């Protein structure tokens, strides 16, 4: 097994307090190997999304650490953490991933802009990325003019804008029909073969069956990861 690109230790996340205290995560330890295709599966409300948000540095844990590429995320200030999100992690969410007022191309350019890429280079790179997900001819379409699958592919292209080592997906196919789902999965598998670490939250067992590692989340805890195809 490769070295872990993300290591989570003792992750606890609680919401509210007193009688309304909700323990979303109750101490999760997790290693995500570099270059793996990892699925986080589990029923709704058991902490999958919370775990993903913590792994991506979108939220702060009540306790515990997440180390990505050697950096302890929650020791960073807001600004450094935002920079880390821009460079190390590409996010794709289930709904409304794209900025509706911008074209497919501009959505990708915005991600590049946030990482400090000069405007001239943005266009070339954005075009490459759109070609990579097979949407080169839709560059000037607004999200409303794209199908769900196409929108998610644009979102993936955008997540890849800054060439992050890790892609974090929160049910990216949860909203798609099976044809669109297949399109998206194909893109993801291609990327994974090219060396990207893909972390994928889903409650679909069918999708999970395509992963290298399955992490089951239940009642805020992980069960032992099952390593499948790439078992050590």
């Amino acid at each position: 097994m490769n070295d872990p690109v993300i290591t989570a230790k003792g992750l606890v996340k609680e919401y509210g307090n007193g009688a309304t205290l909700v323990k979303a995560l109750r101490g999760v330890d997790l290693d995500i190997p570099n270059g793996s295709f990892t699925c986080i599966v589990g029923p709704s409300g058991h902490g999958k999304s919370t775990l993903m948000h913590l792994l991506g540095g979108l939220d702060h844990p009540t306790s515990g650490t997440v180390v990505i590429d050697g950096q302890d995320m929650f020791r960073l200030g807001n600004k450094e953490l935002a920079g880390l999100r821009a460079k190390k992690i590409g996010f794709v969410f289930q709904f409304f991933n794209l900025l509706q007022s911008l074209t497919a191309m501009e959505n990708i350019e915005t991600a590049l802009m946030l990482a400090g890429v000069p405007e001239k280079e943005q266009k070339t790179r954005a075009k490459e990325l759109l070609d990579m997900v097979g949407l080169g001819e839709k560059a000037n379409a607004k999200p409303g003019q794209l199908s769900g699958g196409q929108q998610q592919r644009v979102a993936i292209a955008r997540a890849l804008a800054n060439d992050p080592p890790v892609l974090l997906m929160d049910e990216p196919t949860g909203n798609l029909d099976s044809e669109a789902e297949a399109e998206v999965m194909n893109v993801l598998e291609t990327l994974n073969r090219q060396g990207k670490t893909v972390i994928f939250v889903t409650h679909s067992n069918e999708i999970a069956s395509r992963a290298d590692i399955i992490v089951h989340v239940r009642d805020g805890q992980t069960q032992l990861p099952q390593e499948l195809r790439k078992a050590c």
Partner: protein
Amino acid sequence: MTHTNLIFRSLTRRKGRLLFTLLGIMIGMASFVTFMALGGSLKSQIEQESAALGANLVVTPKGSCAYEQVSILTGEQLPTTITKDEVAAIRSIEGMQAIPYLAERSAIDNRPVSVMGILPEETRVFKNWLLAQGEYFPEETADGAVLGSVLAEQFGLNPGAEVRIRGADIKVLGVLEETGGKDDLTVFLSLPVAQQLYEQKDLVSYVAVRVDRLDEVELYANKIKDKVSLGVVSDKQMRGSVLSIVGTVNMTLQMIAAVAILAAAFGIVNTMMTATYERKREIGILQAMGATRNGVFKLFLFESGIYGLIGGIGGAVMGGLAAVFATPYISQNAATSFVKGSQSSFDPIMFAGAILFSTLVAMVAGLYPAIKASKLSPVEAISYE
């Protein structure tokens, strides 16, 4: 993609809302600019043409008024009149108008009246006199008298009648319209005629001075004192109260404008708050893509700043046009006639200032929504549906 582009794309997304918010600011700024222009013109009007005030300096002989006592103390014989040379010296100063008068007394039917020797044409213009009956002095040295309206009525004198002044029968040429001042009780003669009658050849009693710029009265008082050794009395109190009235009117106009701007500012707050809620998800996505809190804050702040900038430009243009085109109509109204001539007070500095001010107000208005937006946690923003 640049930050500026991103801001403009967000702005133009809801075109209706953009338009209505902009209209709010434009109307606020337009009223502000209009009122400032009107107020400014009022002030410059009063400072430039202080016609309504009459004289603001009076040059008196040292022997008159307060100087009399000095003469008793020192035994010095002080003159009670001003000579022709002194008048000429005073009148040679530029930037002011000086009108000499010979003030004397006489009696009609054993009742005292004041008699005034004047330079007919200059005095008429200076005092804005209108003629009620008969004719005015046909020439500068004309014989005959022009009477104040109250005096004419009191003694039943009409044009063509004769009044006896210092033993001479003088024909009444005309009667002035009522002025509301002591001119109504005065017999006016042309200066040479009066000087001859009262044996004051080439002498006058005082010189009324009106300076072109009211705020430079003191400067001119000193200029006169430098030229001639005479007393100069200025009406500081009058000037002070007129300027304070102008100030009050300006203040009132500005307060009305401030209310309009305040209302527009809350329009921006409202628009930006709505935008914050509406774009919650977008904010989360931007944060996931690596936007910092500071970045989100700036996006929203500049977005409202642009409302202010565009609204300010539009408002300043609208207000400027209103000031230029509407004021001639406003000035036809007796109560607001003071604003005439405001075209001249259209001021590019004020124009630029209004735009800057509008942008600043909009950014202040956008502060709270921008802080709200930047405080959103990414997870909260993404989970919002």
